[in-house]
C-alpha cells in the first residue's frame, strides 16, 4: 500500500472465512484497540449488528438482504417482473471462524460501534438492466459478502489468490493460502505486519491485472463499491481517532489510495435503487461449502472451524476425532492407527515441502492408514467433518424471514385467509385465481407446510380442472414456514429449491416420478430439470423392470398433463422415452423363469408399459417399432419353461391389436402355443393372456376357434381340472354378447363336427338361436332347450358331455 498509510486507520485485509485471517484480525484488533470498526458488508445491517452478541445467536448465520415489494408489482423500483424482484436476495454468510464475524463480535462485546461500509444492498440488488436473470441466480444462491477473495463468476473474473498462488508455483490456491497465511500469520510479533505484507502483494497484483479485473461492471463493480467504502472510511476518520477496517484483501490497496472525494461521489451518483429488507437467517456448513454460494470458495468449513477452535495440536485432535467418527460407524480404528496417521501426515508434509500438514495431508493419511485406501469411509469423513453438519441459530428478535412476508402477500392477493377452523375449498383450475391458489397450496404442501389437504371432489365432477381442498391453518405452520425460509425468499423459489434438493435425495424411482408430478401440479418449471435428472438417474440404476414399468405411466401422464398446462415438457418426454427404452431392453430377460404369480404381475407391467407407450409415441414412431420387435421376440419364444404362456399370449394379443401380426401369424402362434407338446396349464394361461381385453376375434377369425376347440378337446382328463378354473376366469372376463356368440359358434362347430358335414354356413344352422336379439330371453330358454336337445334322440349326446362349450365352462 501507499507506504505511510494514515496511522489512525488499520486496514485489515482478510480472506473471507479464513481461520488464520480471523486469528490475525483478533490479534490486530487487540493491538490497535480501535474506537470504531468498519466491516465490508451491507450498511443496511448496521441496525442488526447488536444481535451478533445475542446469546441465542449461533453461527453459521448469514445476513440476508432481500428486495421488498408491495402487493402491486409496479411499486417495485425496477419496472419489470414484480415476482422476480421479490425473489432477489443476497446473503453474507458468517461462520464462527470468519474474520468479519470475529471482528464484529469483538467490537459488539466491547461496545465499540460497528459500521458496514460496502455499497448498500439497495443498490447492489437493483436490477441490472441487461442481466436480470443472472443477478437473480446469484441472489438465489447467495452471492456476496465476498466481493473479493472470491469472484462469484470464477471463469470470468480474476481470482487474486489463485494468481498469487500461481506466481508462487502452487497449483492450488487454497493450499498456497494455507501455507503462507493460515499457517504463518499468528507467529509474527507485530500483529499488523502480515496485513502490510499482504496489502503489498495485492497492490502488485492489482497493478498487473488492472483494478477492475476482479469486480465486473455495473453497480456492483469494484470501482463503485470501493468508492463507497473509501467515503465511509473518510467519514469514520473524521469522527474517531482510531479506526479499524476489516475487508477483503483485494480492496486494501484501493482503500489506502488517496482519491479526491469528488471523484468518489461522482461514481456513486445515479445508482439504481430498490427497497431492501434485512435480517439474520440461520446458515449451514453445507451451504458454506457449496462453492457458488460462497464468497471465498472454501470447501472445508468443518476443517477450518476445527483449526480455529482447537486450542493446540490441531492435527492430533483432528485425527482423534476422525477415529471417533469411524468407530461410531463400526470401523475398527485403534489408537495405533491415529498415531500412524499423524506420523504419515507429518512426513507427507515434509516430503511436499509444506510447513505444516494441511487438510490434504490429513486426508491422504486418513485414507491410507484408517480407511485401507478406500474412498467410501473417507466420504463419510468428508461429509461429517470436513464440511460438517453445523446449523446456525438466530434469536427470535431477528426480523421475520422474507418467505413469511411473501406468503402473507400471496394470501392477500389470492384472498385466502389463514383460518384455524377447517373449511372446504373447491377450485376451478380454468380460472386464473383458482389456478394460482392451487399452485400455492401445492407448493406449500411440498415445503412441508400442510395448510391444505387435497380431498375427493365434493361436486363429484370427474373433470381434470376441478380440485378440492380442506384448509386449516394451525399455529405451528408459522414455525414450519420459518423453517422453510432457508430454501428461499419466496414461496416459488423455496418450493423450487426444496424440490431440487428432494430430487437429489429421492431414494427410489417411484419417489422421483411422484416428485415430478408434484412439480407440475405446483407449477415449478425451474425445479423440473433437476427432478427429471433424478428420475433419469434412478431409472438408469434400477434393474427391476417392474419398478420402471410402474414409473412410466405417471411420467407419461405428467408429460401429457404438462402439455395441457403449457409447460415445456421436452425434457419430460425425453426421460419418459429413455425409461421406455430401458423397459424394452430389460423386458425379455425379466419375463423368463417366472411362476404364475410373477407372470400375472409382469402381465400387469406389460399392459401398463404398452398403454403408456401408446400415449407417448404415435403408432409408427421408431420407438413403437422397436417395442413391437421386443414383443415379437417375447411372443415367439416357444419353450414354455422360459417365458410363461400368459406373457406370450399377451404379447401376441398386443401385437395383433396393433395390427403388427397377420392373421396367419396369429393362427400359427396359437397353434404352437396350444400344440400337444405344450403343458395344458401353460396353454390355458396363453389363452388367458391372449383373450384378456376382448374375445371378439374368436368370432371374426374362423381359424382361431377351431384351434381352441381342438386343443380343449385334446386336454387329457387328469389335466382338465387344472385347466378349468383358468378358462372359466378367462371366459368370464369376456363381454356377455361375445361370450354368447362364441358359445354359439362353438356349438355349431361341435354340432357340425359331429354331424360330419356342412355346418359352417349361414345363421340358421340351429333353429331358434342365431337371430334372437335378447340375450336374457335366450338364456331363459337355454336350459329347457338344452334339456330338449339332450333328450332328443336325433342329437347325439356328445355335445353335452364333452366340455367343448366355452359358455358352459365359463359359467
Amino acid at each position: 500500500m501507499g507506504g505511510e498509510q494514515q496511522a489512525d486507520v488499520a486496514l485489515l485485509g482478510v480472506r473471507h472465512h479464513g481461520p488464520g485471517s480471523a486469528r490475525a484480525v483478533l490479534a490486530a484488533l487487540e493491538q490497535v484497540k480501535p474506537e470504531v470498526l468498519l466491516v465490508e458488508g451491507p450498511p443496511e445491517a448496521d441496525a442488526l449488528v447488536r444481535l451478533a452478541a445475542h446469546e441465542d445467536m449461533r453461527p453459521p448465520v448469514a445476513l440476508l438482504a432481500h428486495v421488498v415489494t408491495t402487493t402491486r408489482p409496479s411499486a417495485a423500483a425496477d419496472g419489470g417482473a414484480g415476482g422476480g424482484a421479490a425473489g432477489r436476495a443476497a446473503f453474507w454468510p458468517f461462520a464462527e471462524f470468519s474474520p468479519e464475524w470475529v471482528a464484529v463480535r469483538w467490537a459488539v462485546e466491547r461496545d465499540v460501534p460497528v459500521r458496514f461500509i460496502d455499497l448498500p444492498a439497495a443498490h447492489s440488488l437493483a436490477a441490472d438492466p441487461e442481466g436480470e436473470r443472472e443477478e437473480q441466480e446469484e441472489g438465489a444462491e447467495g452471492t456476496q459478502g465476498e466481493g473479493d477473495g472470491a469472484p462469484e463468476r470464477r471463469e470470468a473474473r480474476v481470482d487474486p489468490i489463485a494468481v498469487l498462488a500461481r506466481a508462487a508455483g502452487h497449483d492450488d490456491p487454497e493450499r498456497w493460502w494455507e501455507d503462507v497465511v493460515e499457517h504463518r500469520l499468528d507467529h509474527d510479533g507485530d500483529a499488523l505486519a502480515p496485513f502490510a505484507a499482504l496489502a503489498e502483494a495485492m497492490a502488485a497484483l492489482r497493478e498487473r491485472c488492472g483494478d477492475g479485473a476482479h469486480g465486473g461492471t455495473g453497480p456492483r463493480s469494484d470501482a463503485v463499491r470501493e468508492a463507497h467504502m473509501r467515503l465511509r472510511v473518510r467519514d469514520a476518520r473524521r469522527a474517531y481517532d482510531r479506526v479499524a477496517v476489516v475487508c477483503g484483501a483485494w480492496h486494501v490497496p484501493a482503500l489506502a489510495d488517496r482519491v479526491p472525494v469528488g471523484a468518489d461521489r461522482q461514481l456513486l451518483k445515479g445508482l439504481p435503487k430498490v427497497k431492501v429488507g434485512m435480517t439474520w437467517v440461520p446458515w449451514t456448513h453445507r451451504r458454506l461449502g457449496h462453492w457458488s454460494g460462497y464468497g471465498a470458495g472454501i470447501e472445508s468449513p468443518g476443517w477450518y472451524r476445527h483449526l480455529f477452535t482447537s486450542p493446540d495440536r490441531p492435527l492430533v485432535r483432528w485425527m482423534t476425532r476422525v477415529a471417533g467418527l469411524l468407530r461410531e460407524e463400526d470401523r475398527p480404528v485403534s489408537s495405533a492407527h491415529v498415531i500412524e496417521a499423524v506420523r504419515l501426515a507429518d512426513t507427507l508434509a515434509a516430503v511436499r515441502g509444506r510447513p505444516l500438514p494441511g487438510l490434504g495431508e490429513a486426508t491422504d493419511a486418513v485414507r491410507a492408514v484408517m480407511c485401507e485406501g478406500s474412498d467410501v469411509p473417507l466420504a463419510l469423513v468428508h461429509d461429517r467433518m470436513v464440511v460438517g453438519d453445523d446449523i446456525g441459530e438466530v434469536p427470535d428478535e431477528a426480523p421475520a424471514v422474507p418467505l413469511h412476508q411473501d406468503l402473507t402477500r400471496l394470501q392477500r392477493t389470492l384472498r385466502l385467509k389463514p383460518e384455524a377452523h377447517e373449511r372446504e375449498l373447491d377450485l376451478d383450475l380454468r380460472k386464473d385465481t383458482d389456478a394460482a391458489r392451487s399452485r400455492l397450496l401445492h407448493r406449500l404442501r411440498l415445503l412441508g407446510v400442510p395448510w391444505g389437504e387435497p380431498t375427493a371432489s365434493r361436486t363429484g365432477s370427474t373433470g381434470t380442472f376441478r380440485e378440492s381442498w380442506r384448509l386449516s391453518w394451525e399455529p405451528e405452520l408459522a414455525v414450519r414456514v420459518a423453517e422453510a425460509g432457508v430454501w428461499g425468499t419466496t414461496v416459488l423459489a423455496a418450493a423450487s429449491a426444496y424440490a431440487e434438493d428432494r430430487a437429489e435425495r429421492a431414494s427410489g424411482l417411484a419417489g422421483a416420478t411422484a416428485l415430478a408430478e408434484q412439480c407440475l401440479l405446483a407449477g415449478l418449471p425451474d425445479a423440473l430439470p433437476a427432478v427429471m435428472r433424478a428420475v433419469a438417474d434412478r431409472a438408469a440404476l434400477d434393474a427391476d423392470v417392474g419398478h420402471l414399468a410402474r414409473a412410466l405411466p405417471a411420467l407419461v401422464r405428467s408429460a401429457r398433463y404438462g402439455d395441457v398446462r403449457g409447460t415445456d415438457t421436452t425434457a419430460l418426454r425425453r426421460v419418459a422415452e429413455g425409461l421406455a427404452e430401458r423397459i424394452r431392453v430389460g423386458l425379455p430377460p425379466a419375463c423368463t423363469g417366472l411362476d404364475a404369480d410373477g407372470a400375472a404381475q409382469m402381465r400387469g407391467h406389460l399392459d401398463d408399459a404398452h398403454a403408456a407407450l401408446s400415449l407417448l409415441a404415435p403408432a409408427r414412431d421408431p420407438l413403437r417399432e422397436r417395442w413391437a420387435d421386443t414383443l415379437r421376440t417375447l411372443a415367439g419364444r416357444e419353450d414354455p419353461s422360459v417365458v410363461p404362456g400368459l406373457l406370450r399370449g399377451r404379447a401376441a394379443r398386443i401385437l395383433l391389436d396393433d395390427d403388427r401380426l397377420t392373421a396367419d401369424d396369429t393362427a400359427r402362434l396359437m397353434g404352437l402355443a396350444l400344440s400337444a407338446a405344450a403343458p395344458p396349464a401353460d396353454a390355458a394361461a396363453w389363452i388367458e393372456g391372449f383373450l384378456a381385453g376382448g374375445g371378439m376375434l374368436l368370432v371374426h377369425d374362423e381359424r382361431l376357434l377351431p384351434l381352441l376347440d381342438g386343443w380343449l378337446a385334446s386336454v387329457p382328463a387328469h389335466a382338465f381340472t387344472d385347466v378349468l378354473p383358468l378358462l372359466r376366469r378367462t371366459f368370464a372376463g369376456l363381454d356377455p354378447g361375445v361370450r354368447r356368440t362364441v358359445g354359439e359358434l362353438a356349438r355349431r362347430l361341435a354340432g357340425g363336427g359331429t354331424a360330419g358335414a356342412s355346418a359352417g354356413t349361414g345363421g340358421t344352422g340351429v333353429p331358434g338361436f342365431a337371430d334372437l336379439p335378447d340375450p336374457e330371453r335366450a338364456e331363459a330358454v337355454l336350459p329347457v332347450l338344452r334339456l330338449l336337445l339332450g333328450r332328443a334322440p336325433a342329437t347325439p349326446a356328445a355335445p353335452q358331455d364333452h366340455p367343448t362349450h366355452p359358455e358352459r365352462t365359463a359359467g
Partner: protein
Amino acid sequence: MTTAVLRPHAEEAFAEELAALAAADDRPRPARWNLSPWAVATYLLGGELPDGTVITPKYVGPRRIVEVAVTTLATDRALLLLGVPGTAKTWVSEHLAAAVAGDSTLLVQGTAGTAEEAIRYGWNYAQLLAHGPSRDALVPSPVMRAMGEGRIARIEELTRIPADVQDALITVLSEKTLPVPELNEEVQAVRGFNVIATANDRDRGVNELSSALRRRFNTVVLPLPAGVEEEVDIVARRVEQIGRSLDLPEAPRGAEEIRRVVTVFRELRDGVTADGRTKVKSPSGTLSTAEAISVVTNGLALAAHFGDGVLRPSDVAAGILGAVVRDPAADRVVFNEYLETVVRERDGWKDFYRACREVAH
C-alpha cells in the same frame, strides 16, 4: 548381459536416470536410501532435472498417490498397493524398490502354494545333514535378506498367500526382527528395510488379510486412469508396443476405434456417460485399461488377418462384448441397455452400434 535378457530390471533399464537423479539430489535421504523421497517421486512421475536430463514418467496418475507411497516407505510402515488388475501395481512396486534401494529383485511371488520358507527362511538340507543347524545351512528368503541389508522387499499378490503364511509377516513388520529359533539367534532389520506388497482389489476375500497384519500396512489404491485422453494414450502406446512384438501390420485410422473402446469401457465402468449427463449400469467385469488394450490388440489382429487391414467397429465389437458380458444374464441386459440408450443416439457411432447389435443379439 543386459542385451541378452528379454526384460531388464528397472534399476538396469533406467540406470542413467537414477544416476542423474542421485547426482542432482541434494535433499536429505533416509538411511540407506539411494535417493531422497522427493527424487523418488520425480523418478516415478517424470520431470526435468536442472542439468537437462529428462526423467521419463514411469507412472501416469495422480501425484498424490505416489507421494503417499514414497512417504510411507520413509516411515517404518509397510506399503500395500491395491488396485484392480491392470493398474500397474507391480510396475509401481518394482520402480519404487529400484529407486529407493537400487534393487528390485528381492521378490516373493504370492501364490496359493507360497510356503512360510518363502517369507522367513529355508534350509539347505545337504548342509543341514552334514554340519547340523548353522548359519551356512540356512537359506534366507528375500524378506530376510532385505532385512539384513536394509533394502526393500517386494511381495506380489499378498492376498493369494494362505492366511497362516501371511501372518509370518506380522513379527517382521511390527518387531522388525526375524527369530531363528533353531540357531537361537535372530535377524534384526537394518534401517532402510521395508516391504511393498501388492494385492488385487477384486480378490478381497480370497485370503483376506488379518486385521493385525492389515494394521501394519498403509494402503494406497491405484486408480484406473482419470481422463479419457490419458487412457487413450496409455492404450494406444501399449497396443503399438504389443503390435510390434507380435509383428502385426500397422493399422491406419485406428485411433478413432481406440478412443471408442476406451470411451465404452470408461462409461460402463464409471456408470455414467462421458458428458456426465446420463447414468448407465455397470457390468460385473473389471473393464480395466489392460482389458481395453487386449480388445484393441485382438481387433487389430482380426483386421490384419481377416479384414481389410483397417481397424473397424466390427473388429472390436466382439471383443468388447466378451469383456463386458461376464455374467451372461445380467451383463447382457446391461450392455444392451447401454447400446440402446447411449450408443444408438450418438453421432458418428452408427457403424459401431450396428456391429455391436449384431454380436449382442
